[in-house]
């Protein structure tokens, strides 16, 4: 029974998250653009850009949650899909510079002129159109994940071996993108962006629009993940996580079930990367660093994997902490991050959300026990006075939400 409560509680939590994200997508740009800079409600542009970046990280963490939390595939290479999406967007932004580059070449980006390219490499064709770049943002990470997953899952590579090859994948891409003759700007990557869809990427209005797009895209990804996880396929995903051989002997193809989730997840990570690049103004091979992918795992673990909301909270909190920490004690950030991961693994194995749930579960059990003792009214008043407004106001809705059909008392 408690399992159902948690599941129902989780649904409400996800619905609230979607609502909050959509609200933030409207309110923050308004507070940045329509409110005077002297007002107390004004949100400075740098905050808009910073939180927009965090939302992209949150989307990346959510994409990892789909495969790690729900299917048990610990990918240590999700940063690669993020970076590939970012590069696809970066290539579009490079083509938008046109003749405004340092060398003023109308076709070739600056780094190509510098490296003596005579003409645009074939794989840069089409990136002057936004729709094409958008398609590649989805297709390139998705295709890589599909091919990689096809071979890995078909050969039944699981567990730590799979994690290692995902790590190798992102490392191989890191090395490849570092090379100048790959045609992606080598070490320096792609930068000096000017316009996106004709709007100046530096302008406040554009930044606000990118922020809103990130928040809306994250909300949409939450809806999609929620729908996937709630479907029969989602139940299969968890079944594969818990007892893969059982699913096989029931006639399901566990490799296809994993492959679908892995591909969808990579596409989500690619979208996150594409929204990230115009907001930070650069994409370079550093995004393929294996340590970046491991950091994503930490965000998801801190927030609580397999909860949809948890990885989002984890990504926002850890990154806010990182921004603060690197400002105050820059040398200690990596120690803090490592310490955080150890602490979460030891003390909060289910992350912040898991801790919250078990705390609430205990509180609810206590409440139910005292209700069963026929002391309902006194306890109700007592809790109303000790915790004003919150708990009594929430209780009735909670019960009706979590328990639509009549059930026996606990």
């Amino acid at each position, binding site marked *: *029974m408690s399992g159902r409560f948690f599941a129902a509680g989780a649904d409400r939590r996800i619905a609230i998250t979607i609502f909050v994200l959509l609200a933030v997508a409207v309110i923050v740009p308004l507070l940045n653009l329509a409110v005077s800079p002297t007002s107390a409600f004004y949100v400075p542009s740098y905050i808009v850009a910073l939180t927009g970046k965090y939302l992209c990280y949150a989307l990346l963490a959510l994409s990892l949650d789909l495969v790690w939390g729900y299917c048990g595939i610990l990918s240590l290479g999700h940063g690669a899909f993020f970076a590939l999406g970012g590069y696809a967007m970066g290539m579009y932004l490079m083509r938008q510079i046109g003749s405004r580059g340092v060398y003023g070449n109308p076709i070739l980006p600056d780094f190509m002129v510098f490296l003596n390219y005579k003409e645009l490499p074939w794989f840069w064709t089409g990136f002057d159109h936004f729709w094409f770049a958008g398609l590649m943002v989805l297709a390139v990470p998705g295709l890589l994940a599909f091919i990689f997953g096809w071979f890995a899952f078909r050969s039944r590579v699981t567990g730590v071996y799979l994690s290692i090859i995902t790590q190798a994948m992102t490392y191989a891409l890191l090395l490849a993108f570092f090379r100048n003759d790959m045609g992606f700007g080598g070490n320096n990557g792609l930068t000096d962006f000017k316009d996106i869809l004709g709007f100046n990427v530096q302008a406040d209005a554009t930044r606000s629009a990118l922020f809103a797009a990130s928040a809306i895209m994250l909300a949409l990804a939450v809806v999609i993940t929620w729908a996937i996880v709630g*479907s*029969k396929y989602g*139940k*299969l995903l968890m*079944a594969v996580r818990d007892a893969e051989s059982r699913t096989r*002997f*029931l006639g399901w193809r566990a490799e*296809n079930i994993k492959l679908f989730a892995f591909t969808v997840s990579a596409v989500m990570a690619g979208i996150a990367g594409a929204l990230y690049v115009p907001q930070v103004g650069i994409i370079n091979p550093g995004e393929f660093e294996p340590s970046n992918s491991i950091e994503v795992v930490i965000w998801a673990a801190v927030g609580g994997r397999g909860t949809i909301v948890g990885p989002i909270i984890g990504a926002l909190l850890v990154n806010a902490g990182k921004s603060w920490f690197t400002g105050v004690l820059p040398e200690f950030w990596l120690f803090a991050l490592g310490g955080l991961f150890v602490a979460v693994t030891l003390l909060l194995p289910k992350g912040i959300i898991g801790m919250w749930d078990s705390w609430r579960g205990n509180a609810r059990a206590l409440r139910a026990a005292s209700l069963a003792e026929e002391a309902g009214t006194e306890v109700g008043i007592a809790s109303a006075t000790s915790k004003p407004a919150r708990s009594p106001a929430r209780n009735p809705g909670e019960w009706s939400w979590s328990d639509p059909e009549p059930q026996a008392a606990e």
Partner: protein
Amino acid sequence: MSKSNTILYLDGVSVSFDGFRAINNLSLVLDKGEMRAIIGPNGAGKTTMMDIVTGKTRPDEGEVFFDGQVDLTRHDEAEIAMMGIGRKFQKPTVFESHTIEENLMLALKGPRSIFPALFHRQSAAEARQIDDILGIIRLGDKRRELAANLSHGQKQWLEIGMLLAQDPKLLLVDEPVAGMTDAETEETARLLRDIARDHSVIVVEHDMHFVRELGVKVTCLHEGSVLSEGTLDFVSADERVVEVYLGR
């Protein structure tokens, strides 16, 4: 020997792992609608035989035919499961983070591809099938509980229920009463006899009391091949069986 009226036909099957012959020239025939109990000491090859039948292990040599004509050595686990062979593991294996109902829903016969599963809505017919199975395995009052909260014996039943939901022609049941109380054991024997009315069943079991309850033909395996076959009384009177079991 004719394959035509058999549900399962193994002839001259051998398989070895790192030089160890787990199955050695094994021949076994199960008629359609038959229930068979397989006994044998540890390491006799009982579980390996099930692995071969369900496609988990490929035999080095020999023939394995299902339903008289399907060569099982050419198919993998999922295909074999779809043809109608269900398997219960030695250790009860159910989806612990799902409810009883959901466990059965995932096992129900139907399309096994991703997109139908993504847009699946439970039909009235499916709900009825799940109700029926819940009745058979007597877990109706726990349908919304997580499988993780079931007792060991109830997990065994749930797994048998999942096999039934698959609607297989042949059920392979590996040690269904391990860790069960006497009452649960009797209940399980009744359940399997019910199932055997319209399915072919192979039961692997150590518990002789339970095998006697089933009242079916018994095959005793030893070192990967058939040692003795017949009624339980016949097999247990066989001197070689006694020798193997008592390890003289």
